[in-house]
């Protein structure tokens, strides 16, 4: 409903900003693909798992951050409430994972 109205109001300042935004998106998208390739390469080159697992976890963490902050706009102004909700979800997920880990290995 609101798209149409907002497109009508777009001015040149907005256009400039949108362009920058788009550049950031494309860069982070390219990086994400690059990370995925790295992860695959590590496994295919049969690097020992002591190295592969932490590296993949790290890459995953960075990718998730890109996902949240760039694609899901958590960094933008006026997105406080959605960010809060997402952080809540992250908290719950981490806690559930932690509980599983503790229950399994303790």
């Amino acid at each position, binding site marked *: *409903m*609101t798209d*149409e109205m907002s497109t009508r109001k777009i001015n040149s300042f907005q256009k400039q900003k949108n362009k920058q935004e788009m550049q950031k998106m494309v860069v982070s998208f390219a990086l994400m693909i690059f990370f995925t390739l790295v992860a695959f390469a590590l496994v295919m080159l049969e690097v020992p798992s002591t190295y592969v697992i932490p590296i993949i976890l790290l890459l995953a963490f960075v990718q998730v951050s890109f996902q949240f902050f760039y694609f899901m706009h958590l960094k933008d102004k006026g997105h406080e*409430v*959605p960010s809060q*909700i997402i952080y809540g979800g992250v908290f*719950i997920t981490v*806690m*559930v994972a932690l509980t*599983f880990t503790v229950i399994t290995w303790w």
Partner: protein
Amino acid sequence: MGMTSAQKRGFGATLWDWLTTVDHKKIGILYLAGGGFFFLLGGLEAVIIRIQLISPENNFISAGLYNEMITMHGTTMIFLAAMPILLGLMNFIMPLQIGARDVAFPFLNSLGFWLFLFGGVLLNLSWFTGAPDAGWTNYAPLSIQSPGHGVDFYIMGLQLSGAGTLMGGINFIVTIVLMRAPGMTYMRMPLFTWTTFVASILILFAFPALTVGLFLMMFDRMFGSAFFDAALGGNAVIWQHLFWIFGHPEVYILILPVFGVFSEVFPTFAKKRLFGYTAMVFATFLIAFLGFMVWAHHMFTVGLGPVANSIFAVATMAIAVPTGIKIFNWLFTLWGGSIKINSAMLWSLAFIPSFTIGGMTGVMLASAVADYQYHDSYFVIGHFHYVIVGGTVFGILAGLHYWWPKMFGKYLHEGLGQISFWTFFVGFHLTFFIQHFLGLMGMPRRYWVFLENQGLDTGNLISSIGAFFMSFGVIVFLINIIYTTIKGKKAPRDAWGSGRTLEWTISSPPVHYNYKQLPLVRGLDPLWIEKMEGNKKMTPAEPVDEIHMPNGSILPLIMTIGFTIASYGFIYQTGNKYWLIAVYAGMAIALISMLTRSLKDDHGHHISKEELERVGD
């Protein structure tokens, strides 16, 4: 389109209108009708269970059918009755309360409804070939070993309807974040909107756990994986974890929205503002937050060890605190108010003691040591029926009586309302109070028969008699609906004369664009504020101007039909690979509909200023 659509039309056109509607009010009514239908079905199953248990060693139904009956009763009531009816109320009322013209994603809203309906229908079609029989909790390895296709129907049916619910939840969150009327800050939102918001967040985070669990179960049963098969290195307890990580938040998804309903009903009929609004909002969040860290209280006897059990026991007991805060706030809202008692109020008043009893037995169960005695006995059945029936069902009925005039423009009949309340209320306590003691005397849950002369005979008889009282109450309520539809008294905008929130400022039932001009909200209880200043109407926040509304679409229904066909394919391809054709065909239908939706521009329609001015108000 527009206003003209309200004119008399043929049956075909009306049907088409309902099949393609994206109007949140119509979708709300569809949810209520669908949920109501499944409620009757689940009720019928309950009565059959109680007839089987009316006397010792009864042979009314066979053991196998009994297992199917309890499984379908639980699954139907939770997933297909209680939750959809709540989604119906939220769908209809919440956008009105925040002064919006529709939800944020009307198309998605309709898709969510159809997925729920077809998921439910799919699940129930299993009655013809053998229904699921591993309990509504569907624990592995029982569910993995259950022969036939019953459990497969459970998996696919819940997967479909669960996807629909998830969509509903996301839609409500976005709607509340983005579409509040000018001036409606978060802390001016009515409590029902708040609880809709928080329950939707719970849906967003809880349902994925169910989705994952169902997928793993699907792979195990249909594609030979072994996630839950200990013999092949799997672990059956993982299902229990995933199920309860979803399951406990689910019980709060069921209760929070009705907490919202009561928080609307009490101030309206006590003519007082809600006591402790801020504390209510805070308590709602606290309950939701704690609700995610208590799931293992359903698994005390699994053998997680004393440390895990203690942590989860303490966390569980902590939930009683914010819940208690709420109970006291409602009592203080009533305190000193000029109280008017009618059906909506009766259901709400009856909720307080009934639900409190359920909360108390909850705290008893939360004591891990004691739970070794209570677990899997009728005591647990007593507990959760006190919270779900005494809480959720009472709340739904309160909400229906309260908002019926808004939704349908007519008051439910007061006398009939009171008859159904009293019979149901008495029946409810007859049925479930005694079950606590049956449990303490050692009667296990989910058993097909009990033996004679073990002290269980009278208790079970009383319990079954109570079930008949409840059925009578439900039938009177149905008669009330029919009577009201034909001869009900017409309701004005502010149907109860003491409405406080925005939904009472527009006509009953509302026009399809809800608000001709969006209202300006100047505080909590905006209508009450205007009334106190002697204003007859809300102050508008905008001049009368063209209104933009979304177009209806048949695509959600077609998409859902595609997924349903594919689900059938998945279920039966285990026996015969030709069924894979159904999988591919169904998925193709769904994907093509999605593609159509993405590529075809649909800008909706406009209601012109002239047309709006012609309508008057």
